[in-house]
């Protein structure tokens, strides 16, 4: 029996980080996951809509949950920020009937309603808890044992912990577990649970890139070969802004940043072209060279 979810891709995976969507679709089959994409879902609001208009942000998410509810499926997110925002919204909608009722009054105009039966789960959590690390281990074709891999969680998948209820924000372990399962060595470094600065990168670039740069420098100083993140917005500040971030902290970073499903894909032997790796600004050739060599050796053997 495959695990089935309603995939909520989020704007980033459909916009500036299309490689996240591509790599997700390339790996889930091997993990026994089937998805129905919520094509008519809106933006989750990223916490920004909620700053202006909290109830509208709740309603946008209720609308998305109602679509999944109609399919009888739980929501799978692939963005740490979406997970944080949607998880918190779902919790409120379930706990505060008055809010749910107000929101439903608007949705009802189009014959829609949210009954509060859906759960929202990030791909990372699904891999660890529902697919299981055992199954992931069985799928590993290209052990990542030559790499020291720095996990970068990002804020919204960890905090506030009472809205997420998965990892311990003081000492999260899920990314480390995944890294170990694909035979990589997780790097411990100060920045792994910190913030990449993305939400203010357009208006306060100096602050944001110093945050991103400091975290990447920490990881590099601890010997990281590359970083992996479950949040495409983190990916944007760590990858797209890396050159500037490096200058801000006086370091030559050249640290490849992988999306979580890209790491899974490489380890499961998915061809790099199916993982969108050429779309990064910081080249990932150093990783692909090693994994491709392994893949050819295996084909010959």
């Amino acid at each position, binding site marked *: 029996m495959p695990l089935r979810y309603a995939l909520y891709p989020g*704007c980033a995976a459909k916009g*500036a980080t299309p490689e996240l969507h591509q790599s997700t679709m390339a790996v889930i089959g091997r993990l026994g996951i089937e998805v129905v994409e919520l094509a008519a879902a809106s933006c989750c609001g990223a*916490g*920004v809509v909620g700053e202006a208009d909290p109830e509208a942000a709740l309603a946008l998410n209720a609308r998305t949950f109602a679509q999944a509810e109609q399919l009888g499926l739980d929501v799978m997110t692939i963005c740490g920020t979406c997970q944080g925002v949607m998880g918190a919204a779902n919790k409120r909608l379930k706990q505060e009937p008055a809010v749910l009722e107000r929101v439903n009054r608007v949705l009802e105009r189009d014959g829609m309603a949210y009954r509060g039966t859906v759960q929202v789960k990030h791909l990372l959590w699904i891999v660890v808890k529902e697919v299981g690390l055992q199954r992931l281990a069985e799928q590993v074709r290209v052990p990542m044992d030559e790499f020291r891999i720095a996990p970068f969680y990002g804020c919204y998948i960890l905090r506030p912990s009472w809205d997420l209820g998965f990892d311990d924000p*003081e000492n999260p372990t899920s990314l480390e577990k995944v890294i170990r399962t694909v035979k990589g060595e997780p790097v411990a470094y100060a920045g792994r649970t910190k913030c990449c600065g993305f939400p203010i990168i357009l*208006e306060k670039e100096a602050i944001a890139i110093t945050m991103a740069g400091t975290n990447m420098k920490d990881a590099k100083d601890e010997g990281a070969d590359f970083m992996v993140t479950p949040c495409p917005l983190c990916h944007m500040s760590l990858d*797209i802004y890396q050159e500037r971030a490096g200058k801000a902290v006086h370091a030559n970073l050249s640290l490849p940043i992988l999306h979580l499903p890209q790491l899974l894909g490489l380890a499961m032997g998915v061809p790099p072209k199916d993982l969108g790796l050429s779309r990064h600004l910081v080249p990932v050739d150093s990783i692909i060279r090693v994994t491709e060599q392994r893949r050819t050796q295996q084909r010959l053997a």
Partner: protein
Amino acid sequence: MRLTFTLTRFHPERDAHPRDEDYRLEVNRGMTVLDALIRIKNEQDGTLSLRYSCRSAICGSCAMKINGTEKLACRTSIRKELERHGQIRVAPLGNLPVIKDLAVDMSSFWSKIKDVTPWLSRPAHNSTVQPSPQSTSPQDSDQFHNVDACIMCGACVAACTSHEVSRDFAGPAALAKADRFIADPREPQAAKRARLVQLEQPHGIWDCTRCNFCVEVCPKDVKPMEAIIRLRRAAIEAGLTSTGGARHITGFVELVQKEGRLNEALMPLKVIGLNLGRLLHVLPLGIRMLLKGKVPNPLAPPIAGIAQVRTIFTQLRQRTKPS
């Protein structure tokens, strides 16, 4: 059981760098980290400096970094720390200068609180302005959320990721304090506006990245970031919409309302506007993104069911905005 406590020691006049020192101590299950520190000081090493008073999470003086996270030592159970981390390491709060060992200099913390004028402004005696109410009702006090519960421990400031790289940031505790006065019906509108004008300056409300660290570590559930968000909303509603931060929010909402999704290709224009210098600054990244296929089509059609998304905004905005 016998446990090792690893404490960060530092005497700035004598030591070049902080160093870790281990102390072994017989502890029982119910003890707090503060109990252990006091015993270490009394029984093993009288030179250890730390600050505490009430021992019951009231005075706010014993905040420190316990196993890497900002906590009140008097409220932190040794047993739970062991379960969570398998060790006990204690260091002074970050983001503030160390006076000695576990005691930090809180002066910058206090001066930032003073900077937000943490008292009510009242109209001058000869003012013709309609007097504000003299007292608050229980319903009004709900508007202060939990901000008045703050015990000024500094944990949030020490954990703040924006403060870590930008020491002039007003910081979560002071901004939460400011929010309390914006919510107070006794303060005249003009005074509130003056506050918001000050708060939207650099190092104010728009320097927060919404990382949630302050919310997570606050021992009194003040949720400073939520307070900062309320201040941002108040600033926008007061018409203070020219900062990059405010434009980020209004532009984002506009795009989602129009298209149903966020189009990152259009965000820089919304945030930066027609400032040519700033646009030229982001342009090179935009071009590199374009070459990598990372720029979403700015002309993409809205999502299916966009009419409903627009209804959500028009209907629920009217409801949340005080008329």
